[in-house]
């Protein structure tokens, strides 16, 4: 009974923390382009199409299905979709507090991992609805299934990892991790291995069948095999990218940064200690394997974006769970406490404003305002070409005239070259789409001049709310006369 009250108090505490930290940036429409691209591509399901059929975004299809579902339940309200992400983070934190209770179960070990993850992701870098959060939900389910005694345990682990890999292809790496984990304790177990692989295959077979049934197998293979493989061609330095992140984290908050170093140091210490004294602690090895895999995930993604480290931050948060000495626990609690004060203080003012302004946040979004005005000017069969503020497509419920959805993909040679090979985009994709003479053209530069088009006046739009990372983001919308 006492435990339940304690849990409820903790859940309420993290709820307040999540709201305070996450709501501080909800007034800005775009925190990251990725989310906009997921939303626009997700709408394809609503038109009866499959992703990659007419619209391409560099992620597996389940992610778009989930985002389409988010659009449906929120009536395409971006602000509410952001709140869904907050709920997801809260769910992850609750799951974390209930994981690995077999070997150690006290207040410190139960509540430290979620608090660490909350702090590691408290910076605005990790506020958007990244696919990694959804991946974590499914990987956490796999972790939970791994510690149950269900008969179908391995199928369920495989199935969860399979779903995660259909949200972010890089998380397929965790299939190998879980295969290692289930075989580590008592040697190679063929039946367990086969059932786990079978579970992993089920969601993949389902999606493969759906694409095959719609004669889109080639597109599916292109998006899930060819393009991800082309990523390995990109010029990327793992150590440099990690250094950049660590420097940024140190500049953001020295206490949170030191918590990360303590977590890493404790994981290494524990590994050394277990090796020296030949201690068999399966839960520790599980975390070690998952941490290494999540670093591999960052490496394989090959871009060095901070959000590719969310999975590592999630798994490393568990490492200090096994600290036993009270003094060390106290030190960590103290640093967590100071960090929480810092994170809350910096977010509080903006969160307060946003909560007061709750009803107007969506209507204040700049692209939402522009789209609302344009809605009456565009008919069902007219097309739009957008290369920057693609939320315009989302609000107007229109596909992009280009096969490419994500604005950054035009510059990724390793991806566009694959799309060109499959004859999905032209050599000069932007010029080619302008020549299609769409009703609305939205570009990242203002060099476009044509007698057929007039530039939309956007002086009354509050550009501060457009993009978090740019003080004067480009907003160039042209309408056909």
């Amino acid at each position: 009974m006492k435990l339940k009250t304690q849990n409820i108090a903790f859940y309420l505490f993290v709820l307040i923390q999540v709201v305070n930290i996450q709501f501080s940036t909800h007034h800005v429409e775009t925190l990251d382009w990725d989310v906009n691209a997921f939303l626009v591509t997700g709408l394809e399901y609503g038109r009866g199409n499959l992703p990659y059929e007419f619209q391409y975004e560099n992620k597996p299809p389940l992610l778009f299905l989930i985002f389409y579902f988010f659009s449906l339940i929120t009536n395409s309200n971006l602000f509410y979709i952001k709140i869904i992400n907050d709920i997801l983070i809260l769910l992850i934190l609750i799951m974390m507090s209930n994981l690995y209770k077999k070997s150690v179960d006290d207040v410190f070990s139960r509540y430290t991992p979620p608090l660490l993850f909350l702090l590691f992701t408290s910076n605005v870098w990790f506020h958007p609805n990244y696919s990694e959060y959804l991946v974590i939900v499914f990987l956490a389910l796999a972790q939970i299934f791994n510690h149950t005694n269900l008969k179908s345990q391995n199928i369920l682990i495989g199935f969860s990892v399979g779903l995660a890999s259909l949200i972010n292809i890089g998380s397929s790496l965790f299939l190998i991790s879980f295969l290692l984990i289930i075989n580590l304790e008592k040697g190679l177990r063929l039946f367990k291995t086969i059932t786990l692989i079978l579970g992993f295959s089920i969601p993949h077979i389902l999606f493969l069948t759906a694409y095959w049934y719609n004669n889109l197998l080639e597109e599916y293979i292109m998006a899930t095999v060819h393009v991800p493989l082309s990523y390995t061609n990109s010029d990327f330095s793992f150590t440099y990218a990690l250094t950049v992140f660590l420097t940024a984290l140190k500049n953001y908050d020295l206490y949170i940064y030191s918590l990360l170093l303590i977590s890493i140091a404790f994981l290494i210490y524990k590994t050394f200690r277990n090796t020296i004294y030949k201690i068999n602690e399966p839960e520790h090895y599980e975390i070690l394997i998952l941490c290494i895999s999540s670093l591999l995930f960052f490496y394989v993604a090959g871009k060095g974006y901070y959000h590719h480290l969310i999975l590592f931050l999630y798994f490393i948060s568990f490492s200090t769970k096994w600290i036993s000495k009270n003094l060390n626990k106290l030190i960590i609690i103290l640093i967590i406490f100071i960090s929480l004060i810092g994170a809350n203080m910096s977010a509080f003012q903006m969160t307060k404003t946003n909560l007061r302004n709750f009803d107007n946040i969506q209507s204040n979004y700049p692209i939402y305002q522009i789209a609302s005005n344009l809605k009456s000017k565009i008919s069902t069969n007219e097309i739009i070409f957008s290369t920057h503020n693609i939320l315009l497509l989302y609000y107007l419920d229109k596909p992009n005239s280009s096969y490419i959805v994500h604005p950054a993909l035009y510059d990724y040679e390793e991806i566009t070259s694959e799309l060109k090979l499959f004859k999905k985009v032209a050599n000069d994709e932007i010029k080619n789409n302008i020549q299609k003479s769409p009703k609305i053209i939205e570009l990242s530069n203002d060099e476009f001049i044509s007698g057929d088009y007039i530039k939309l006046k956007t002086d009354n739009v509050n550009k501060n709310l457009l993009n978090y990372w740019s003080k004067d983001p480009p907003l160039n919308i042209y309408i056909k006369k």
Partner: protein
Amino acid sequence: MESITKRFQTTKIYKFDYLFYFFLIIAILSIFFNVLNYFNLKESIQDFDKFDSGFCEYFIITPSLQSQIENKSIKFSKKDIYVFPELENLKCIGRVGEFYIENNQIKGYVYTNTKLVNNIILIFNFSQIIFHYFFNFYTKKKFYSLLCFVNLILFFNFYNSINLVSYNFLFTSFLIIYFFENEA
């Protein structure tokens, strides 16, 4: 039998003591020569027209050193150099070269290689932790002294190549040792 094992253990620690003193002497000598070298640079550079910088002859502690010599100021900036396959460049890390005069200011480069220095710190610290805790190579006192001395020397001699990652490796190593001493 027991006495043989004891004797072997004593010999083992005794032998590795030599390793400890070897590291210590190398460290003290390197600091001594570099400090000497640094004062040498300050003196030689005063007569810039006759100054011969040679091949990475002079050592410097910090590139922000900007002293005034007569009417000329001196300014050094960092320059990363490869040490593979040009192994002779190893000598240059932490040293200065390529002097020139611009706008009545003596300019030069301090050669750095962050990756190499970080790898040295990582490999040294972690190998010592493994040697000490896995194989019991040194006594605790000597292990601590060796770790402190060598890290001090690395940070002193390669100060210009040190970045946040170097501090991370150092901090993490000390944390691991702390956990070994206070958690086990």
